[in-house]
């Protein structure tokens, strides 16, 4: 055991977090909803993994399952979530979701920011109170040291007058400032992984640009890994090193950002890229849309989930068997029968 | 395949279901609400046909049965099971120690219960004179809920009391409803000054403790008034406070709905205000109103019962549950004749049933919410 740990410690190439065959199901009255179905990916040290997909593809649930905060009635039913932590290897999927071990990791090793900056902060506690709480919980600090640190963090995330803001409430702050406060809270304990679940979706473009820029800066300063979830391909292109494309709870394509945008393989990825209007190109021409809509991942028929909407679909192959994620070229994995 | 087809048609059925069908589906899942609703239907039927369902005249004094206890309905005797239920006759004795009158079942006198029997004459809804009763015994009176201090049948009196107590809830709510809709509607639709004034008036009225206010107002009703006048007087007094809550609901919902996009869409289409109100606002509104009305009725019933109980509301010879409960005010009498509390039980069951029903309706009111 000791020996194993040492090798991990010595090997810089070992990723920070490895998710293997993760399955999260929601047991609903209407049936079993497979929100995340057999998804695997790695997050490298100091890397940004972008997870992209449309609503209901399971990208948020993936993030929640890493912190083990999947809401009821969802359950992690299979797979491993391996966190390499100072030479220790922890399988988060095996921890008790309300136990001491996972709580020590939440907010310390892995932190999270959310889509709605309005509702993700408590309306009746000051910003400072909420940030200090995390600090006091995970770092050995006194009240005044924690306050010092909080002020410093607020300053770092670009809040201009931290001494005033620290005692204000969330409704006194604009959307952008709230999201900055959330980031300050998430970074206050020096996490090794930051999960950002659509952090800029509710914000205006100019503010989105501010936040993206801030996250890039802080990522290099703090040397952390980031898991960035969004439906906006432009944002992904801006920030991610690797990209995981999800569709109906499954990973359909997993490669470096450059590969995804310049050599997409899966018909869904290709379709997504073609269906977004691009500035400066073929303006006022027709977009190549994907036909149909995303079905509810409830009682799905056999075969590839994208079969009904796929241009390349082959009857008798795609609707019969389940494809699996295979490596086509080095580091470029795709979940499609076309590349068998 | 066949199974699949059936599933699709079931889905299609859901897709073409109207608001009310969806509401019924949701409501049916609510077992307590169904129970409450059924109870109320039974209560109201009993109250509407109280003359028919009560075995005796409510004013007839059976001097041999003063404070007679409730008789039990039997199906078994020493001979075994009988399809026709029966009661045993009551025999009055004097307790040798306390010298109180006590009643014991006389096992030798079996009084079978017959249905549609002839008995005391009564007028159904003051229209049809008849003497047919739903049930009764052929030989003498029957006291399912016991008798009061004058030997009057409490079962029959309770049924007649239900007529006043239950209807006062409905009439009171109807008046509050009309007032609430008009005032709340004006307040919500016009906004501005009208809204401000009504809001302040409602806030003011809510500040006054209801029961003391009701008491003061009903004490002012002239003593000489006949029961019907008193009845409407009390309804109006109850409605003075009752409309506030409904007006608030109407206003709030109206303000909320006015902002909905589909209302704006109808306006942009060129729909008239009348059409917007009747086709879009009212249907969306109606279910909430029904819920709130259902939950407002128990307050009215309670108000009447409290007032009558104190002697400030309905007065004898009129009977309501509150009037009947006046006899239960003395603890010593009550301890000896606990069946005097039965009207109280009726009140509790009614209010409980309305609350269950209202709860179920509230859940069903918005069938589009998941």
């Amino acid at each position, binding site marked *: 055991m000791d020996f194993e740990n040492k090798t991990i410690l010595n090997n810089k190439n070992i990723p920070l977090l490895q998710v293997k065959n993760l399955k999260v199901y929601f047991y609903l009255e209407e049936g079993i909803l497979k929100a995340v179905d057999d998804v695997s990916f790695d997050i490298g040290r100091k890397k940004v993994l972008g997870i992209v997909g*449309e*609503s209901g593809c399971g990208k948020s649930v993936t993030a929640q399952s890493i912190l083990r905060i999947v809401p009821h009635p969802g359950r992690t039913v299979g797979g491993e979530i391996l966190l390499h932590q100072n030479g220790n290897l922890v399988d988060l999927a095996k921890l008790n979701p309300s136990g001491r071990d996972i709580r020590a990791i939440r907010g310390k090793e892995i932190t999270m920011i959310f889509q709605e900056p309005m509702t993700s902060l408590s309306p009746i506690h000051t910003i400072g109170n909420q940030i200090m709480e995390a600090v006091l919980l995970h770092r050995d600090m006194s009240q005044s040291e924690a306050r010092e640190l909080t002020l410093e963090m607020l300053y770092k995330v670009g809040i201009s007058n931290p001494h005033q803001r620290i005692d204000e409430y969330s409704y006194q702050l*604009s*959307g952008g400032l709230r999201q900055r406060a959330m980031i300050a809270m998430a970074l206050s304990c020096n996490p090794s992984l930051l999960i950002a679940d659509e952090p800029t979706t509710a914000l*205006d*473009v*100019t*503010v*989105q*640009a*501010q936040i993206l*820029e801030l996250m890039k800066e802080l990522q290099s300063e703090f040397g952390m890994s980031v898991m960035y979830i969004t439906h*906006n*391909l*432009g944002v*992904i*292109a*801006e920030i*991610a090193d690797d990209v995981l494309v999800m569709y109906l709870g499954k990973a359909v394509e997993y490669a470096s950002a*450059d590969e995804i*945008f*310049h050599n997409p393989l899966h018909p869904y990825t290709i379709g*997504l890229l*073609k*269906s*977004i*209007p*691009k*500035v*400066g190109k073929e*303006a*006022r021409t*027709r*977009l*190549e*849309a*994907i*036909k149909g*809509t*995303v079905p509810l991942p409830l009682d799905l028929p056999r075969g590839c989930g994208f079969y009904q*909407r796929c241009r390349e679909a082959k009857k008798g192959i795609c609707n019969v068997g389940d494809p699996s994620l295979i490596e086509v070229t080095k580091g470029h994995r795709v979940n499609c029968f076309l590349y068998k | 395949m066949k199974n699949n087809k059936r599933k699709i048609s079931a889905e299609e059925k859901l*897709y*073409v*279901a*109207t*608001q009310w069908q969806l509401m019924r589906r949701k409501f049916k899942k609510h077992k307590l609400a169904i129970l409450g609703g059924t109870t109320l239907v039974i209560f109201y039927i009993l109250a509407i046909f109280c003359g028919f369902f009560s075995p005796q005249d409510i004013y007839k004094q059976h001097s041999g049965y003063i404070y007679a206890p409730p008789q039990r309905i039997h199906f078994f005797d020493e001979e075994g099971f009988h399809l026709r239920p029966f009661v045993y006759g009551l025999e009055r004795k004097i307790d040798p120690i306390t010298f109180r009158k006590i009643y014991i079942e006389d096992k030798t006198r079996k009084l079978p219960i017959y249905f549609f029997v002839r008995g005391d004459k009564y007028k159904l809804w003051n229209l049809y004179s008849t003497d047919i009763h739903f049930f009764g015994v052929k030989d003498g009176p029957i006291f399912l809920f016991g008798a009061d201090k004058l030997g009057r049948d409490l079962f029959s009196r309770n049924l007649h009391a239900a007529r006043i107590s239950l209807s006062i809830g409905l009439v009171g709510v109807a008046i509050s409803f009309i007032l609430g809709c008009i005032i709340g509607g004006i307040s919500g639709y016009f906004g501005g000054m009208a809204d*401000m004034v009504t809001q302040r008036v409602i806030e003011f009225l809510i500040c006054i403790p209801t029961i003391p206010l009701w008491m003061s107002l009903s004490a002012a009703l002239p003593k000489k008034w006949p029961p019907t006048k008193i009845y409407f007087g009390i309804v109006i007094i109850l409605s003075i406070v009752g409309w506030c809550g409904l007006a608030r609901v109407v206003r709030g919902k109206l303000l909320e709905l006015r902002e909905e*996009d*589909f209302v*704006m*869409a*109808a*306006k*942009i*289409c*060129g*729909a*008239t205000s009348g059409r917007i109100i009747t086709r*879009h606002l009212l249907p969306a509104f109606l279910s909430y109103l029904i819920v709130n009305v259902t939950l407002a009725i128990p307050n009215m019933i309670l108000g009447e019962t409290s007032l009558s109980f104190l002697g400030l509301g309905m007065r004898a010879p009129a009977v309501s549950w509150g009037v009947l409960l006046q006899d239960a005010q003395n603890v010593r009498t009550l301890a000896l004749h606990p069946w005097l509390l039965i009207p109280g039980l009726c009140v509790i069951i009614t209010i409980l049933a309305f609350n269950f029903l209202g709860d179920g309706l509230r859940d069903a009111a918005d069938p*589009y919410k998941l």
Partner: protein
Amino acid sequence: MIKKNELPLLEVKNLKKYFPVEKGFWRKTVGYVKAVDKVNLYINEGETLGVVGESGCGKTTLGRCILRAIEPTEGSILFRLNGDMIDITKLDRESLRATRRYTQMIFQDPYSSLDSRMTVLDIVGEPLLVNNLATGRKMEERVKDLVNVVGLNVKHLKRYPHAFSGGQRQRIGIARALASNPKFIVADEPVSALDVSVQAQTLNLLQDLQVEFKLTYLFISHDLSVIEHISDRVAVMYVGKIVELAKTEEFFLNPLHPYSEALLSALPKPDPRLRMKRIILSGEVANPVNPPSGCYFHPRCKYAEEICKKEEPEWKEVNPEHFVACHFAKELSLKGVI
């Protein structure tokens, strides 16, 4: 202002919409939100004018005022009907109702914009019914055509909205807007609530319909790439005012207002190879209740000078058909994207 020989389909002059801010117990008016402030624009027949701006800039209010869905505070809205320009703001209730069939709206939220208590037939048929265009069987036939045109299944006429997905609901909304054969449609963020793949379908549909029915669109969006994709001309709004108005290519190549430049720069481009230094605007959109002095954009503008704090810039035509409100429109050379 009108350059073409023919009259525009719609011309908005000096349009204002002020919402009173009521405070306190007696609901006293303590100020105004200038949601739309002195807006001038025109739209030619068959073209799409894109209106872009960040949240709270008044673009939705502008769209609703133009249709008189809400009453504008001041200004005129001229609409060409049978060759005459009529002022929509001056119409009485009845004539306004009569002109409503020519101007329609598509809403952002596909959920709240459909009455969940009506079937598709009733929803799409409502404009026909209230404008006495068709009833009974004729109405049903027409609704079937419309439903077909927007790409929904004709068999689903009796279904209620809850049976449809967001994209399908948006199609129902589009069918309703088309029902009365309108000339002009305000599309208020019609695709921003939809998934990426469905968004493309909807945009395509809107473009097809424009050709088929010779529609004129006022297309409101916060997404510049969507605006660029669909519009012939672009108007940029900032705190209730239009700060720039130009042809689409011209605007994207050669923006004249610093805010436009920043917006273009902030737009994330779906290509990791194009990562570049952006112009990051400091601060956030000004509060329309209490806007800054002079040019509303000056606190965030990196080119701002003393005059910008004091004087409100004039709305002027700098290049042909390129309007802008900036003191230094001619001096600055700003960066476009194409």
